[in-house]
């Protein structure tokens, strides 16, 4: 069961990199603000999409993001998120609750031509839901889509 925004998927569009934080603490990366997050603001003005059916959670996250120099738009469910996403806005980050009415959080499929075990493990650990090697032919794609369609995700 997904627990509000705390289980979040951060997807950086364009580069295709993602990080996933399951419970609480992110590893302290070199150069990251860490405990000094009070004084941190993003150098670039970023735009985030916050997807959560709980308006209290959306507002709080939006306020925290604003403090970090990140603008945000809100969506109440996955369907609204998809509509906004394809409405032309270009997001840098998406924070998405997993469990929502209408449409739950999105499933992230990682694809790579590289199928080395260590690299796959690292990719999976970054928060993707599934990994598939390229090329994605029609059979493989149909299997992926069937899996999403028939799962209770």
């Amino acid at each position: 069961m997904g627990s509000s925004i705390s289980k979040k998927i951060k997807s950086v569009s364009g580069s295709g990199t993602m990080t996933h934080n399951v419970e609480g603490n992110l590893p302290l990366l070199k150069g990251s603000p860490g405990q000094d997050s009070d004084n941190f603001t993003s150098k670039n003005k970023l735009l985030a999409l916050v997807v959560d059916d709980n308006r209290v959670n959306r507002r709080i996250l939006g306020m925290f993001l604003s403090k970090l120099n990140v603008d945000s738009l809100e969506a109440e469910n996955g369907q609204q998120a998809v509509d906004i996403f394809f409405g032309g806005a270009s997001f840098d980050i998406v924070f998405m609750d997993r469990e929502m009415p209408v449409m739950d959080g999105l499933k992230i499929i990682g694809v790579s031509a590289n199928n080395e075990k260590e690299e796959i493990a690292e990719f999976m650990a970054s928060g993707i839901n599934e990994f598939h090697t390229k090329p994605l032919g029609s059979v493989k794609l149909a299997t992926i889509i069937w899996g999403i369609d028939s799962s209770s995700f």
Partner: protein
Amino acid sequence: MKSGLSKTTNLKEKFGFMEGGMEISQLQRHFVEQVSSMFSKGYLDGQFFQLQKLQGDGGIDFYVELVSVFFQDSEKLINEMGIALDKQPVDFKEIGANAHQLKGSSASMGAKRVSKVCEAFCSLCKEMDKEGCLRCFDQLKHEFPFLKGKVEALLRLVQKIVASGGAVPVVEP
């Protein structure tokens, strides 16, 4: 005359400022005591501290509105949970979904005890334990109004401090 009037006005301003100053420090001390007590008794946690810091960045109006939305939504959820618990058969899925919602928003607000009760409520709904759910619901009906009363009292203090021109202290857990 002009000079006397000016003197009187200055004295009023002076005494007004002093009274205001004393009142502010008392209000601030009272606020710190109240928040510290709520931290130590487990009603609030570190998330509340984070929200306090947002208030410090000029977000007091935002916080007041947020609290109002939180109470409004939570009361609706609790009311719906009560109705669902009276149904035959009990709709554990609906109650569980509401408990999950309340767990998320109360955790975001730093309302630790309410969030913990909701967490237990979610587990009991999964187990379809009606007796357990009823006990949890009773606990929620006790915890939530208590929290609401305390937070509303804190907000009144915040508004008085701000109206007196003081800064709202940020209290660490």
